[in-house]
């Protein structure tokens, strides 16, 4: 059953990765066609035509959106490839930054910004990248479910003592007015988060002093993967 599940995940990953390649081609066509229009406008500088500046502005917007599209397809492609291996060595900082970027839109629906903080040096762990991302996302969802509109969620990975941890900290409006830990324990997402992190061999705990969540992960003393 678990093998079938892994195959299903790998299949979704493979299809998604393939589509992101096609999306790159679509973006390349938009980039080159709008670029050509810019070139042609440049050639007309000596004989300006009506609304030339407006057209130039519109083309600049198109190029900006192409850049945005490229960033999104890169993230999606990486996410798709995360299912290539069920267990792999990853840098926790990198994974948290990646997950924050992927979940940004989800948080934006509540006007919340996700901020990933890196301690600098890499924290290498051998784990399931998909399950870890699911756990991090569920942690973010827990916070979002308790937060009013607006604010920030800070994600900070740390290598501490015998464990690695990811601190998810809520910084939102009117948070002090709710019994944070009590509400967290009542949240449906909390139970899911606990289960997910336990599957990774870790544990979760509320951060009682600062309205947040600690996700503890086992230290695997992993060295960086060879390229």
């Amino acid at each position, binding site marked *: 059953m678990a093998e079938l599940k892994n195959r299903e995940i790998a299949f979704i990953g493979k299809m998604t990765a393939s589509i992101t390649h096609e999306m790159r081609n679509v973006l390349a066509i938009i*980039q080159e066609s709008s670029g*050509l229009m810019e070139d042609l406008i440049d050639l007309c500088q000596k004989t300006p035509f009506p609304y030339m500046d407006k057209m130039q502005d519109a083309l600049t917007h198109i190029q900006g959106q*192409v850049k945005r599209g490229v960033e999104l397809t890169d993230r999606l*492609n990486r996410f798709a490839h995360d299912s290539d291996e069920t267990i792999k060595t990853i840098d926790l900082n990198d994974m948290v930054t990646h997950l924050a970027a992927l979940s940004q839109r989800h948080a934006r629906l509540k006007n919340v910004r996700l901020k990933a903080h890196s301690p600098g040096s890499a924290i290498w762990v051998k784990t399931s990248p998909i399950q870890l991302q699911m756990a991090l996302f569920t942690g973010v969802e827990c916070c979002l479910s308790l937060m009013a509109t607006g604010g920030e969620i800070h994600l900070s990975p740390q290598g501490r003592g015998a464990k690695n941890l990811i601190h998810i900290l809520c910084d939102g409006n009117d948070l002090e007015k709710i019994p944070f830990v009590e509400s967290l324990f009542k949240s449906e997402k909390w139970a899911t988060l606990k289960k997910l992190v336990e599957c990774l061999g870790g544990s979760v705990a509320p951060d009682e002093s600062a309205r947040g969540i600690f996700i503890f992960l086992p230290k695997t003393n992993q060295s960086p993967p060879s390229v």
Partner: protein
Amino acid sequence: MKYKLLIVDDEEKMVKYLSKRLVIRGYNVRTAFSGQEALAAIKKNQFDVILLDIMMPGMDGIETLKEIKTIAPTTAVILLTGHASAKLDAEGRKWGAFDYILKPFDLNGLIEKIHLAHQHRCREHDSVAVYREVNAADPFD
């Protein structure tokens, strides 16, 4: 001096727009939409730099690259790809690619790579010429 370029990609619209932009900048550009078409063009013409897409139906970019290097060993090849990977970089360089660039690309960045690739090609060309000259003049031959 503007170089002779060959763009090889099955995305016809992309090739069309890119070639027009390079022509506006004074380059002499030919296009091909498959590996086979590219090889036929290379057999008939000399190119300074070839821009070669990796993911093409039929003969893919790496297969085409191997063939290019047997027909025109000193021609510089820049691979076009959707996503960067260390494996691809290693594979491309193993078969003689000069560099690779991610699609969609900034045109100025591409032009910079084309210049570098051309310089590299000139150096390779000179080395081959010197090698031939030395061998021809070898008194022990």
